[in-house]
């Protein structure tokens, strides 16, 4: 198990009342919990992953997500069981869309 922490600047997301939960902790998959954060232009991410040694890839995936989506003002907790970048990106997009209630 490896723990990683990142934060990226991002355009503020529409604040929502409820956190969003997406995905499941299963082989090749991951669970994402998206909560309101403190700084409105920061996306703060905490990752627990079963696959060690992919910090650079995580940084690139989260960085691209924060650049492409309005994800500022969020705190994202990830439990990963070896998901590919494709699955991570899809889950992040799903969680954010869920959090904002359909506004993209």
């Amino acid at each position, binding site marked *: 198990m490896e723990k990683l922490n990142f934060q990226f600047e991002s355009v503020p997301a529409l604040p929502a009342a409820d956190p969003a939960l997406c995905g499941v902790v299963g082989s090749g998959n991951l669970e994402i919990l998206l909560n309101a954060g403190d700084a409105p232009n920061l996306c703060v991410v905490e990752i627990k992953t079963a696959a060690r040694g*992919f910090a650079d890839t995580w940084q690139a995936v989260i960085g691209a997500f924060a650049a*492409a989506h309005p994800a500022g003002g969020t705190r994202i907790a990830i439990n990963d069981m070896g998901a*590919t*970048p*494709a*699955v991570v*990106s*899809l889950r992040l*997009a*799903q969680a954010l869309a869920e959090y904002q209630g359909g506004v993209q």
Partner: protein
Amino acid sequence: MNAPLPRQWDSLRQNRGRRLERAASLGLAGKNGKEIPVDRIIDLLEAVIQPGDRVCLEGNNQKQADFLSESLADCSPERINHLSMVQSVLALPSHVDLFERGLANRLDFSFSGPQGARLAKLVQEQRIEIGAIHTYLELFGRYFMDLTPNVALIAAQAADAEGNLYLGPNTEDTPAIVEATAFKGGIVIAQVNERLDKLPRVDVPADWVDFTVLAPKPNYIEPLFTRDPAQITEVQVLMAMMAIKGIYAEYGVTRLNHGIGFDTAAIELLLPTYAADLGLKGKICTHWALNPHPTLIPAIESGFVESVHCFGSEVGMDAYISARSDVFFTGADGSMRSNRAFSQTAGLYACDMFIGSTLQMDMAGNSSTATLGRITGFGGAPNMGSDPHGRRHASPAWLKAGREAYGPNAIRGRKLVVQMVETFREHMAPVFVEELDAWKLQKSMGAELPPIMIYGDDVSHIVTEEGIANLLLCRSPEEREQAIRGVAGFTPVGMARDKAMVENLRDRGIIRRPEDLGIDPRMATRDLLAARSVKDLVRWSGGLYAPPSRFRNW
């Protein structure tokens, strides 16, 4: 004046006569008819096959003349040796035994699949000489040109006493093999699953067949085209949504072929749901060159599909196909007639799109399924996945693609050749690479060319989880390279993209992300699949689809 060439002009026929006489002298057939007792098959093979012969062993990715293959491998290498094998697929252990036991030393083929690693080892030990790796259609073509078999060993469902053959739904390669062999002085031997007084229909007439043998058990058929919907992932659903909305709908693709795999199975299962919601029923996917994929059942039942011509059949689909004779090509007896050569021709000339997957793709768009230590070959993909310069008839999809590629005054159209891949395979192996393993494999094989499955200049679109790259609209090799890097995700070559250039390509619509296509990622769930299990497929078929036991878990 030149003197007439002193040669005999019917040596093939005379040679054939001597082979048949040798068999007759052993009491095999001749005036006793064409039926050979199963315990004398080795005697027959040793009587009619000569050292140095070119032998076609029928076997492709589905049905296999497995009994004849095992029998040939059990022949004496003292009697039979230096055979040159021509066959679609090297799939069975006995196919490789021929080379390991010293009966054969040369091979021309299309695909090796599960035997790819053993084959690579034999090549490295120089115990096998590979003539070439072909597409199916290309190999069939050479059967009628410079690789005509002396002896063909084929598989049929049933024979009658005269030697007429019924091939059943898995007709596949048999007509091409038999025609080339029987009309050029060759010998045709068929293993059959049963002997019948009256055949349901005659697929091969008796005078093209020399011997039949009742095999101890029915010929093996691999259920190669069955994909369990339970294994389709949400990333595959997302990619299928992109393909349907960004390619199928935009070009109005009605005539197409799908490769094997879960990516295209996902598309088939989104037709009755996502594509129907987009109003695409009747506008896309009406005519197919395709094996009877069980995952196509929901689209057929939903009225999407008008016609399907098949290369071969698929285990468990026979009753469903018979009951849907408006859609599938079936005989007067009710059972399907497949034909690989004709279906490949349809895929080459009459389809507007091929969409399939690959294991590796380089920055020029060349793709390969060859990886180090395995010689796998191509099958039909390079034929389906190429833009045929011999095509002349127009269609809206073909014209639109042609104008994108060659400008508004184009004098020709363009086939859509779509590669659909996730950027990483299992164990985080990147699909997008700077150099294909095929180049290293070429060196280890001593081959003239690297085994590239689909050439980059034939590829029109690449679909990954990151988006769609339209290579037709690229105007320079640099743009093409950046378009590929721009959908290569977080692979090393994807991370090495020129970000400004990729954004420019996106502004011009050459690269499109899911959000550019108006795709809500929350819809990309398995709930969008018309069937989520094999049991769902059985239900869609009204109980007509009978999946093989390994796909039944209820």
